[in-house]
């Protein structure tokens, strides 16, 4: 009996000595030299909080001058104007919803810099996958107010033919993939698109925006892991604005934000002040260069604050203090950039007033037209489900038309009510 055990033991010892047992551990850096004989659980404290990259610091503004930063003046003014336009659009479309002219709206207040600062650093060919709070990217790429307004009103000029809720924008010619409501789904899709671009040896990249709440979805894990393992040229930009509807970030995760997850997946990562348009621009620009050159992903966590309500279906004072909102409003991205531009003598209140009045007039005109524009055709309820028309849909469109013809007066009454 004893000999049997000792023989077995010798065999096990032999096995342990085989170099092959440790080759994988060595290859992945888990070497024997690294091992210790205590039980060292690793905790949150061992990952120091990542610093926040910032250019426009409200308390140290004096140290920053436009010459030092080597920013082109026109670029800065364009970024600022677009941020202002976005806030004008938000204010007016929000009111449109309150008046019942559109069914739904989501503002971007407080997050203008994340969107426009990053969009300005991308090239027009770069593909964008967004969540829903990234209208500024489309504004930056040159879309007119009429585009946004038509989508929100769902008239026949809307590209999605009135099928989606307001704010679900998309534009093929501007390489902006149509938004969908399910959170996080765009993340692995963006990674797939990035892989496709890499395979075609194109110097394009993909940018994918998502909130810190969406980062809790399984799709976010899938995307970060796929992007790293399959080496995809993608910029993953997380808008960490502190809230997912009513859920504060403290109930969303227990680690140090989203950024600390990046290195765990093997992704180059940075945290940036999302209320600083200049920092956002610089970081995105450098990240883009790396992504295109190395064909690998980068994760950017932009720290910001959602000043507006989650949506028009939400009253955020039910779960946060009004004082917090007011504090952030005083130091919002627009205020910060404006101060810098005014200090640098390339912007002033007169220019601001002119731009605001021009923007307001534009959007009010767009709304007037959108409201009287015809709605999409009934046929468009059935088209685009498939590339062609399957038999069941041709039958249904015939039936629906005859049903509507019979009850046309009733339908008109119902719709007018």
């Amino acid at each position: 009996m004893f000999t049997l055990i000792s023989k077995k033991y010798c065999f096990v010892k032999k096995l342990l000595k085989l170099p092959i047992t440790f080759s994988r551990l060595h290859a992945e850096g888990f070497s024997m030299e690294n091992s210790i004989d205590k039980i060292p659980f690793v905790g949150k404290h061992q990952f120091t909080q990542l610093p926040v990259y910032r250019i426009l610091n409200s308390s140290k503004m004096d140290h920053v001058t436009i010459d030092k930063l080597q920013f082109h003046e026109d670029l800065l003014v364009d970024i600022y104007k677009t941020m202002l336009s976005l806030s004008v659009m938000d204010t007016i479309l929000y009111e449109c919803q309150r008046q019942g002219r559109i069914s739904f709206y989501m503002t971007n207040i407080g997050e203008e810099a994340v969107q426009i600062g990053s969009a300005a650093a991308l090239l027009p060919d770069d593909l964008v996958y967004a969540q829903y709070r990234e209208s500024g990217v489309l504004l930056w790429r040159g879309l007119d107010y009429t585009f946004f307004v038509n989508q929100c009103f769902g008239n026949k000029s809307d590209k999605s033919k009135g099928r989606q809720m307001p704010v679900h924008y998309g534009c093929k010619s501007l390489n902006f993939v149509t938004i969908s409501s399910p959170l996080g789904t765009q993340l692995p899709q963006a990674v797939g698109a990035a892989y496709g671009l890499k395979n075609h040896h194109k110097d394009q990249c993909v940018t994918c925006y998502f909130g810190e709440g969406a980062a809790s979805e399984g799709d976010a894990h899938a995307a970060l892991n796929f992007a790293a393992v399959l080496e995809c040229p993608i910029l993953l930009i997380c808008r960490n604005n502190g809230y997912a509807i009513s859920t504060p970030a403290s109930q969303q995760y227990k680690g140090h934000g989203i950024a600390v997850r990046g290195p765990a997946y093997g992704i180059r990562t940075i945290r940036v002040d999302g209320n600083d348009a200049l920092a956002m621009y610089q970081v995105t620009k450098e990240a883009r260069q790396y992504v295109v050159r190395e064909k690998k992903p980068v994760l950017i966590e932009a720290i910001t604050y959602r000043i507006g309500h989650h949506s028009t279906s939400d009253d955020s004072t039910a779960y946060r203090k009004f004082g917090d909102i007011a504090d952030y409003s005083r130091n919002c991205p627009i205020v910060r950039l404006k101060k810098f531009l005014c200090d640098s003598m390339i912007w002033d209140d007169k220019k601001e007033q002119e731009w605001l009045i021009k923007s307001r007039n534009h959007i009010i005109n767009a709304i007037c037209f959108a409201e009287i524009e015809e709605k999409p055709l009934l046929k468009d309820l059935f088209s685009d489900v498939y590339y062609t028309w399957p038999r069941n849909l041709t039958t249904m469109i015939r039936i629906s038309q005859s049903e509507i013809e019979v009850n046309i007066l009733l339908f008109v009454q119902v719709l007018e009510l």
Partner: protein
Amino acid sequence: MILSKSCRPLQHATKLLRRCLPADRLKNSSRSIQFNYYPNPVLEDAGETKEMNMCNAINNAMHQCLEKDETAVLFGEDIEFGGVFRCSVGMKDRFGQHRVFNTPLCEQGIVGFGIGLANIGVTAIAEIQFADYIFPAFDQLVNEAAKCRYRSGGEWDCGKLTVRAPCGAVGHGGLYHSQSPEAYFAHTPGLRVVIPRGPVQAKGLLLSCIEEPDPCIFFEPKILYRTASEPVPLQYYKLPLDTADIVREGDAITLIGWGTQVHVLLETADMVRDELGALCEVIDLRSILPWDSDSVCQSVKKTGRAIVSHEAPLTNGFGAEVAATIQEECFLHLEAPVGRVTGWDTPFPHIQEPFYLPDKLRCFEAVKKTLNY
């Protein structure tokens, strides 16, 4: 002594089970095959053919696809070494790792990744290792892939995506290696769901799915991978996705099925012919969504009787849709209620599989009942 006592109830149960189980069913209980394969008749203008099983035919189709379409990529779990069912053998070596590659083990990632590839015009062939594991990707398939074209007004689409997944009973697959989830997806406008019944069909239908500008889910009955063998044309050919296939003509009753079940129905038709002297018309639906209700209803108007049969559970199975449509379209022609022979409304069991499946005996009984109605 203690040992034998505790074993007694078990022995008793086994004896009981032996008595209940017909001998021929018990013989191969670990790898039982519930059907005989009926080879496809050789296609017209088939050109040169080669004997292939369904696994080879799918492999052949994918080789031809990647050869013809330079953008095409194939990916999923364990693809590179040839796949756990050997469907992607030789592909990585031939086309390179950038076109045939393993992904991390994450189904929602695989389908999402495929949608993104298809968004930019890349032909994406994704593999889900078993249809049972497609559910983590349900959101990506149902909310995203299916609605991509519609929600963007036709600006964006992912029509170049094809998701392949082995499905159906395999003799011993238990709960999570046997499912037939086609009905879940048949409730989703925008998707195409296709199931072949053998090698010739698999190659032609898969190539159609890949070329079709709509996202397709291609369920491959895994028991056919090796058991089904027939001469398959070597050329690149496609089979239509919008028509059912009348596999055998008859006038007494219409039997409707898909995948492996078509062979069960063919065998049932033989039994009916030999024992009852009646001729069954057997239809392979092939495409579950959109499905060819015209061919089915035309046949039922001729025969006046219909039975639809599938491995998936009865309640809300796709048979319900077929039966309801027949009832609506052929009401004045029906001589008997439309029958359904399906799996039971239970999870798919392991040891009890022979009693779960809608085999030829159960189908035969249903036909007899319908004919005598």
